[in-house]
């Protein structure tokens, strides 16, 4: 070890491994030539030259564009430059990866040569390369797709939140510019945004928690009932209970919207009028929210019901028998046998239900478009974040604010996703049961 260190110090730049590295840094392939790995050198050389020749102009404009977002109005389209810039960055990362791989490879080969290892034959080298890299080749197409279909639009949206892209400042006539965290700042400081944001955000949370919990509780309750041995006609009951799920939500929600119409809808007119009650389902925010929660419970419980029914079949009967022998009560059996089984198998899916309702655009927009209006804010009484973002984007063209809010929504959803993955890991602990 001590000897090696000494040699290293003495060798300095003239040491083969450093020469190879430096040559590769200067231009990909040179290091390989120095190592007398001619074919490999050519491959790297050709690869880098073609990469540079084909993408140089594109990346050049792209990087310039993402920094400046254009300099001549009408001539430069900021949104396109931004997109080109993002694509350039991605392509550049791929390029840098190849470049780094080339340097590592040259250095590694040089080290092998220093240590007197024999140079592998061409065939051997290829076989080695192939067997080590096989999984990576398999995921490569998927990875590239993922980068451009999933990551790129996300980056684009993230970027918009830091620009001044609004109705009066939109390309091609105007150029965008970077404004840092201004949009987030105005979200919590400027009155018209602040009031609306907090009321919409809190309702979104309340909506998510209540609507989802209710649908889960109802699904659980019905699943337990139907699973009871004493129940007859199980199959028919199950079919009926699954029905709400079978009708497209789109249709159900529109029908509900008509049913809940306070003056003309069947609920007030034909049901509640007999009790002399008229509830302002659509014009009072509280009742509109109540109606939405009831509808979502109705729409959402069949899935949970189906899920729980399936899992309940798999709870081993001998556990209940053992509990009977020990004199366990009905509640104790439920608490210590049924519930753990159910939750263990379904927790990730249940968490996804929360995430889904958090962004449940359909029901809000189809039922009453986020109405009724609330004085002094620019979102309706039942608007959740996602429907508000829709209005900001398509009705008032506040693209930058919409992007900023979307980022906040994304953060909240990631919390759900984080817990979901934590729970999914539970599947690995198979010994637990």
């Amino acid at each position, binding site marked *: 070890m001590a000897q090696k260190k000494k040699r290293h110090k003495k060798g300095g730049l003239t040491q083969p491994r450093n020469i190879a590295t430096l040559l590769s840094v200067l231009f990909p392939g040179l290091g390989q030539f120095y190592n007398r790995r001619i074919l490999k050198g050519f491959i790297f050389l050709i690869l880098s030259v073609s990469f540079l020749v084909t993408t140089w102009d594109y990346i*050049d404009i792209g990087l310039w564009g993402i920094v400046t977002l254009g300099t001549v109005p009408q001539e430069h389209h900021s949104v396109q430059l931004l997109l080109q810039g993002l694509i350039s960055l991605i392509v550049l990362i791929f390029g840098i990866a190849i470049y780094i791989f080339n340097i590592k490879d040259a250095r590694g080969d040089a080290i092998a040569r220093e240590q007197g290892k024999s140079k592998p034959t061409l065939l051997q080298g290829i076989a080695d390369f192939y067997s080590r890299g096989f999984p990576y080749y398999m995921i490569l197409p998927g990875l590239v797709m993922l980068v451009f279909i999933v990551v790129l639009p996300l980056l684009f949206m993230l970027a918009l939140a830091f620009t001044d892209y609004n109705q009066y400042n939109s390309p091609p006539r105007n150029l965008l510019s970077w404004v840092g965290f201004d949009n987030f700042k105005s979200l919590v400081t400027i009155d018209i945004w602040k009031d609306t944001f907090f009321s919409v955000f809190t309702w979104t949370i309340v909506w998510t928690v209540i609507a989802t919990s209710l649908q889960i509780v109802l699904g659980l309750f019905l699943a337990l009932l139907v699973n009871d041995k004493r129940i007859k006609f199980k199959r028919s009951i199950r079919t009926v209970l699954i029905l709400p799920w079978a009708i497209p939500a789109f249709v159900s929600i529109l029908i509900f919207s008509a049913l809940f119409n306070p003056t003309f809808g069947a609920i007030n007119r034909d049901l509640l009028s007999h009790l002399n009650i008229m509830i302002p389902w659509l014009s009072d925010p509280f009742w509109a929210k109540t109606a939405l929660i009831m509808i979502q419970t109705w729409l959402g419980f069949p899935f949970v019901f189906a899920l729980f029914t399936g899992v309940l079949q798999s709870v081993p009967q001998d556990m209940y028998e053992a509990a009977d022998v020990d004199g366990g009560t009905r509640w104790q059996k439920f608490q210590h046998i049924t519930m753990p089984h159910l939750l263990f198998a379904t927790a990730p899916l249940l968490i996804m239900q929360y995430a889904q309702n958090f962004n449940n655009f359909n029901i809000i927009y189809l039922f009453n478009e986020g109405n009724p209006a609330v004085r002094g804010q620019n979102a309706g009484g039942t608007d959740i974040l996602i429907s508000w973002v829709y209005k900001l984007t398509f009705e*008032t063209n506040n693209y930058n604010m919409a992007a900023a809010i979307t980022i906040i929504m994304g953060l909240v959803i990631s919390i759900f996703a984080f817990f979901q993955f934590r729970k999914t890991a539970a599947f690995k602990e198979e010994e637990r049961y």
Partner: protein
Amino acid sequence: MKKWIWMFIIVLFLGGLLVACGPDEADQSEEQAGENTGEMPEKPDALKLWVNAEENQEQAVEEITDKYTEETGIDVELTPIDMLDQIESLDVEGPAGNGPDVIFQPHDRIGDLVIRGLVDPIDLDDVESEYTDTSLEAVTYEGEYWGYPAVIETYTMFYNKSLVDSEPESMEDIMNIAESDTNASNDEFGFLMEADNFYYVYPFFAGYGSYVFANEDGNYDISDIGLDNEGAVEGGELVQSWYEDGYIPQDLTPDIMNGLFQEGKVSTVLNGPWMVRDFAEALGDDLGAVPMPVLDNGEHPNSFVGVKSYMMSYYSENKEWAQDLMAFITNKENSMHYYDVAGEMPPRDDALEDPVIADDEIFSAFAEQTEYGEPMPSDPAVQQIWDPINDALDFISRGETVDEVLTETVQTIHDQIEASGANQ
């Protein structure tokens, strides 16, 4: 050592890239100088036109452009795209070079199109006098014309002849009808309209002196909003009284309203020409239409007029021929053909006087109403008024104090205009 090398490499690489960045053509000088020489440039092989994706309209435009091809030899490629989606599509396709030469848009989006730089102004020259004054006013923005007016529409009073004895002429008549014919428990109404939609309510505001933006010769002053002045309050209170008197039920949706009218349960209803076909099918000869009733102060209510027009894409490379095509589509003969097939009224004096329209009992009422109407504001800021003012009507319908609500609403509109970046 190793870390240091990597850092060095990456900095070197990125630095090298960034140093040479930027397009070479950054400062292109303005190429177009003297264009208006009056002579037509060479004919292009084809012109691209985006037509509203509606069956009858597509058919009508196709027949007209076929004639154009016959006369000039220029092929016209039609692409059906929903009118309201055309701006977004143009925004994407235009810079990419796949955009059309001509798009079809309602005039109230002109301001938005202009600030985005998606359309070019046009030259109406010698055909200017043929279009109606209202429609010319509609396509004017910042002192220039931005489109060839093709369709004009507004709303007016439909009535059911079997329920109404004589043509209602004043608000007093309408209120009498409402008083005698309304029986809400039986779903029978004397007078219905979407009173929570500012588009329809505007005439009752404007008739008393309210306005959206102050307008002087086509220049809007968006800091002067007239939706909380005395006239607005008077209009708002009028609307509120309809709810209080039980003439118009809360939670009335357009579907329910039109459905009831078609069932023959409603005497008079305020709606646009797009409903004529459905209404006529349901009511037959009982369907009548009159211009909007005169207000109590003797004013004709100024209904909002919408003018759909052909506009020229900023990205068009055949601007002269694109205009030639637009003028051709909107000339008298072709306008009448369009009216025949698509059922939309052309904003041309000669067409509106044509017996085909002038003798049509229903469409002549619309034609007359457009004379009292005023174009919807085309300033981009108009997009910020719709939500707040509709919300205000919602509050008014619930019985909240009108002037308070309107003052608050105008403040919200000012805030929203500010937030949309108008004063940057």
